[in-house]
C-alpha cells in the first residue's frame, strides 16, 4: 500500500474521533496532541479503530509510535501491507 493511502486511512480514523477539529492544516512531523485536542481516551479509540477496521493490533508498548502522523505512517505502513 502506498504511503499516501496509509496516511489517508489513518486520517479517516482521526477525523472520526477528533470530530470538532480541522485536520487540513495538520503538520505531519509534529505530535498530534500538540495540534489536536486529543486525550488518552482518543488514542485508545484510534487503537480500537485500527483493530476494527484494519485488523491491526497495536501493543501497548508501541503506543508512543502513534505520536505524529509521520510516525503513525512509518509504524503502520508495514502492518497495512500484511
Amino acid at each position, binding site marked *: 500500500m502506498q504511503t499516501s493511502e496509509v496516511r489517508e486511512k489513518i486520517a479517516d480514523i482521526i477525523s472520526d*474521533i*477528533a*470530530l*470538532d477539529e480541522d485536520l487540513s492544516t495538520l503538520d505531519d512531523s509534529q505530535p498530534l496532541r500538540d495540534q489536536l*485536542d486529543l486525550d488518552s*481516551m*482518543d488514542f*485508545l*479509540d484510534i487503537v*480500537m479503530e485500527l*483493530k*476494527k477496521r484494519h485488523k491491526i493490533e497495536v501493543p501497548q508498548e508501541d503506543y508512543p509510535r502513534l505520536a505524529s502522523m509521520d510516525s503513525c505512517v512509518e509504524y503502520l505502513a508495514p502492518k497495512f501491507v500484511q
Partner: protein
Amino acid sequence: MKHRIVITGVGLTCPLGNNIQDFRKNLLNDESGIRHIDIRHMGKVAAGICDFDEKKHQPRKMRKRGTRAGSISIYCANEALLDANIEFSMVDKDRVGVFVGITEHGNVETENEIHELYENELDTGLWSHHHNPRTVANAPAGEVSLNLGITGPVYTIGAACAAGNMGLIQGLQMLQLEEIDLALAGGVSESTDTFGIFAAFNAQGALGQHDDPSLSTRPLDINRNGIVVSEGGCLYTLERLEDAQKRGAKIYGEIIGHHVNSDASDFVLPNAQRQTECMRKAMRKANISANEIDIVNLHATGTKAGDIQEAKAVAEVFNSCPETYINATKGFIGHCMGAAGSVELAGNLLSFEDNKIHSCKNIDNLDPEINLNNLVQNGSVDKKVEIILNNSFGMLGINSCVIIKKFNN
C-alpha cells in the same frame, strides 16, 4: 430555621418542547408528543422523543464519547443556567451541586455494545473501553461536571420513576445544609434507546400501543392501553431565597414541602396507603392543609393498577377539598421515567403566571374505578394557582412528593 429554597431557572427537553414556555403552550393546546419509532428487535413502537440540538452546548466529540442521558443533562443544565440569568463564569464551581434523578442507567449502552459484540462474532477484544465510564451510574450527572467544570458534589439519584422529584429534593437539602450555593437538580431519561424496557413492559402487558400514536397511552381512561416510554430531562436551578433575591433573580416558585417514603410491599404494584402518607407528610412539612393545594399532578402512568391505586390515595386526601384540581401529564408526552417528576412539574409551574390548570389528555371514558373530584379532563380550567403538589412514584415501591408555592414578594 431552615433556609427557604426557590426555583430560579428551568432547563428542559421533552417530547413537547425544548423549553418550559413551548412545553406549556403545547400542553394548553392539547398537543401530543408521542409518535412511532422503530427500535431494535421490536420494530414499530410508540414513544416520546426529544428533538433538542445536542450540539448547542456540547462538542461533537464529547457527545460521541458520552451517553444520550449525559447529553440531555448537559442541555438541561446549560439551559437552566441561561434561564436563571446566571453569569456562570463568575460562579465558584466548588459550591455548585448537580443532582440528577434516574430510573436506570447503562442499559442503553450495554445493549448497544452487546449488539456490536454479536456483529463482531463475540470478539470481546473489540469491546469498547468506553463501556465503563458510559455505564457507571453517575454518568448522566458526571458529564455535566465535565461540560461545565463543576467541582462540587455531582451525582445521580437512582429512584426508578420517582427520581425526578428526588433530584429536586436532594438539591434542596444540600442547599439547606449549606454544602453548596447553587444546585442543578431534577431528572433525566434516555430509556427510548433501549429495546429492553419496551420488551419488558410488553411482557408485563403494560406497553401502550395504538395505530394512532397519540392514543397509545390514555391514563385514567377505561381503555388506557398502557405505558408509552419517553425520553426527556428537566433540571432546575435552585438557590437559597436570600441569594436569589440578592441578585434580583426571577423566582418561579418556592419548594415548601417534600417527602419520600417506601411501600415495602411489592416489586411493581403500588401501595395507596403509602402514597397517601407520602402526600400528607409532605404537606405537614410545608405546614399547609390539603385544601390549600390548587393542583395535584398525578403520576398516572396508564396502567390499571397504577392509576387506580393512586386515584384512591389522592381521593382520600383531596376529595373533600373543593378548590383542589387534579391533572396528569403522561397522556401528552408518555412516561419520561427518571425525568417524569421534574418534567411534569415544569408542565404546571407556569400556572403561577397564567392561572390555568392544564387538562389531562385522552380521557374519553373515565375508568369507573377512578373517583376523583375536580379531575381536569376536557380542556384547561381557569383558576388562580398558588400551590402545586407533584407526585412521582416508582418500582420497588418508592414514592416522592414535592410541593411548590408561588413566590409572592
